[in-house]
């Protein structure tokens, strides 16, 4: 039995009439995507300001009275948590996932639009709860984004009474929001593809978002459970994670809990989280690269399987974050091995990106610049990851700035590069206007070079042994004077990079009214989202009839074709037959 596609149930789509139902309580995936996006960018800016404050303290110690050791820890924690969860996860999945999935697979909307709307409002609630923690007595938690007990809930840690509770509640609400959205994304990809859109014809963007969502649905439960258990430890006085201990000379009532259990639960979520952020970025960058190099993506099928393999493997590497927590050597061996194995599909992807560029007709437009920038930063961060995956190398480097440099390159800067690429690439579709090119290039070069000015020296600081999460280095023998001037230079670069984001924001708002009109499909892209009857697409996306797909999303520069791209919904004719990669013709690969 075939179940009717949403196309045939136009009754289900309530066309909104008033401003409120159209833009506020909206069930349209495109509006929800923009709501997610704006909220995420807003909290992202908060996190960016926090990082600037931290850098001020590190670069110029003893200068800023309003940054105390406690507030420094609070900045670190909120910065890290916001960046990872409330910015990247929300923007990549809630923002781009929402916008692109129905358009790219040829659906009219998500399968359950009402739940999709609720997902956004729950997300907004979680953000409000999180922001509220800046205003409660004691301020936000300063436990580090990993929230390790016992210290997270003990006196002495900033925000140990109110901040941590709000943080945990906010995370739980976020997980509910994510689940409501995520169920929609997965079901839409599996069940609501238009005619001809087989799984192996989906753009890699969809594969990345889809797999990341599945990871989220399976990994967030670990965070939810640990949040519940820690809340009980904090509020009710249970001892899940709390051993018997003496705090400030006082015997506490806790007894017999296991702090290491929390670390396992947290990282069982935390490592897949890295890929929840990375996989959508992998997918989107593949599509941007192929489009602006006017070439099919190299090794499409390998790319798909690499995404799936990385997703699967990401559940069996978590304890590489816990080498210093003490572990049976056999487990250390196991987790080091799995960690290095995950490098194989990852490396395949990198080779394929580079081979996609190879002899392509590269247009160095702004999205392409960011996409190529991503290849650099990702290779860079990935290589240091290989170091840290080995127990013996990790032990001395753990909790130093080498780690800070590593994860910023691989999961901070790299997804951000892709997000910028994606915004420059899809902005014309979302708004009907192009972003300004000159401003975009300035934004790119400042961000890209600035990134290196910030993070390259951090590797060196890490080798010196400068520890992370430290308010100040104090007078330590092993840290030379020069480290201080290095820190000052990092801070200057960070402030420049931070300020250069203003160029971007200006560009986004200015182009909304003054940008060049984009017209239809300005990049000459093949995938379905550019083939809508209206730009930007209207409610329901496709007009009276859903598109039919005849080919994969990478028919660029097909020999003999009249254009250098063939949209997925263009019917084949005798002159240019379709070219899925697995065609035996050999032309596609």
């Amino acid at each position, binding site marked *: 039995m075939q179940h009717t596609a949403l196309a045939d149930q136009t009754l289900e789509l309530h066309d909104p009439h008033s401003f409120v139902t159209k833009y506020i309580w909206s069930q349209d995936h495109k509006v929800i995507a923009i709501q997610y996006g704006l909220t995420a960018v807003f909290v992202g800016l908060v996190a960016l300001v926090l990082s600037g404050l931290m850098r001020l303290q590190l670069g110029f110690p003893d200068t800023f009275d309003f940054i105390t050791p406690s507030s420094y820890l609070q900045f670190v924690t909120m910065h890290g948590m916001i960046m990872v969860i409330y910015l990247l996860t929300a923007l990549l999945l809630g923002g781009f996932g929402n916008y692109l999935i129905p358009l790219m697979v040829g659906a009219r909307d998500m399968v359950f639009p009402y739940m999709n709307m609720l997902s956004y409002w729950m997300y907004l609630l979680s953000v409000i709860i999180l922001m509220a923690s800046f205003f409660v007595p004691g301020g936000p938690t300063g436990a580090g984004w990993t929230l390790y007990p016992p210290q997270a809930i003990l006196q002495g840690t900033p925000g140990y009474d109110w901040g941590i509770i709000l943080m945990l509640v906010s995370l739980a609400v976020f997980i509910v929001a994510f689940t409501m959205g995520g169920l929609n994304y997965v079901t839409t990809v599996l069940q609501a593809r238009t005619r001809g859109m*087989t799984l192996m014809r989906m753009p890699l963007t969809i594969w990345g978002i889809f797999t990341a969502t599945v990871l989220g649905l399976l990994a967030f439960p*670990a965070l*939810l*459970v640990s949040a519940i258990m820690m809340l009980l430890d904090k509020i009710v*006085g249970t*001892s899940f994670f709390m051993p018997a201990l003496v705090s400030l000379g006082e015997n506490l009532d806790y007894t*017999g809990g*296991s702090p290491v*259990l929390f670390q396992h639960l947290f990282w069982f979520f935390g490592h897949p989280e890295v890929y929840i952020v990375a996989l959508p970025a992998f997918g989107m960058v593949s599509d941007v690269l192929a489009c602006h190099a006017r070439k099919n993506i190299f090794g499409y099928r390998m790319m798909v399987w690499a995404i799936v393999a990385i997703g699967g493997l990401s559940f069996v590497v978590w304890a590489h974050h816990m080498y210093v927590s003490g572990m049976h050597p056999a487990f250390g061996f196991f987790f080091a091995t799995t960690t290095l194995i995950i490098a194989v599909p990852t490396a395949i992807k990198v080779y394929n990106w580079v081979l996609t560029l190879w002899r392509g007709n590269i247009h160095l437009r702004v999205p392409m610049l960011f996409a190529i920038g991503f290849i650099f930063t990702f290779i860079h961060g990935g290589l240091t990851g290989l170091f840290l995956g080995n127990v013996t190398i990790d032990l001395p480097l753990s909790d130093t700035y080498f780690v800070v440099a590593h994860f910023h390159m691989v999961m901070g800067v790299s997804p951000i590069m892709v997000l910028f690429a994606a915004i420059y690439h899809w902005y014309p579709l979302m708004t009907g206007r192009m972003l300004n090119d000159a401003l975009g290039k300035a934004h790119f070069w400042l961000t890209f070079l600035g990134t290196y000015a910030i993070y390259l020296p951090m590797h060196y600081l890490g080798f010196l042994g400068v520890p992370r999460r430290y308010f100040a280095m104090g007078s330590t023998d092993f840290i030379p004077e020069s480290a201080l001037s290095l820190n000052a230079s990092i801070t200057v670069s960070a402030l420049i990079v931070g300020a250069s984001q203003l160029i971007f924001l200006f560009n986004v708002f200015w182009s909304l009214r003054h940008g060049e009109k984009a017209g239809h499909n300005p990049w000459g892209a093949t995938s379905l989202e550019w083939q809508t009857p209206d730009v930007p697409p209207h409610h329901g996306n496709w007009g009276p009839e859903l598109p039919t797909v005849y080919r994969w999303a990478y028919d660029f520069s097909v020999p003999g074709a009249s254009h250098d791209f063939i949209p997925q919904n263009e019917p084949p004719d005798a002159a240019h037959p*379709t070219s899925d990669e697995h065609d035996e013709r050999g032309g596609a690969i």
Partner: protein
Amino acid sequence: MDTSKPDNSGYTEPGVSGMVADWAADKQAFDMPWGKLMMWIFLLSDTFIFSIFLTGYMNVRLSATDNWPNPSEVFALEMFGHHLPLILIAIMTFVLITSSGTMAMAVNFAYRRDRRKTVLLMAATAVLGASFVGMQAFEWTKLIVDEGVRPWSNPMGAAQFGSTFFMITGFHGMHVTAGVIYLSIVARRVARGDYEQKGYAIVEIAGLYWHFVDLVWVFIFAFFYLW
């Protein structure tokens, strides 16, 4: 493979590659309504939640510093002058499993469009579920009032006994309660005839949730009461 055909249905390839091609064909991967697939995926996610709860419980139990109380003693009742270990749990489990039976029958009658029987059986399921929650409340009261077990302490040994017990059975009890509410709403709508047009897949979807909650209980039962 001839990819010029937009619709691959009806196209068969032999063996594994045929299966893959079939599954990856256009429109939909699983032959079921959207809501049903979504419920399956949600339950998969929920399975992870309960598995992690139970894994956490095992870990906490193994690393607890005090003695773990003997469950068959803790959960014994004096009935009719007899000392019956685990009797209440046995009844609770029986009730819940029976409710899965009535639910399965409700699904059957729903697809046959026998609305009266469907509603009756769903109501029976909800009542059985509610009485499960009632017995659970009784058990909690007994533990708290008579035995002095608290989430943070336990006169019989390890404090984690109470913590994990209240947390996990509480979380499960909330699932059952939510299920009772869910079933009641759906049953009401069935009675009103809201699904005459759309079809009765919704009853099966509610049933999936209910069976899942039931299955989870079997694991909780095994891990808490029999270990």
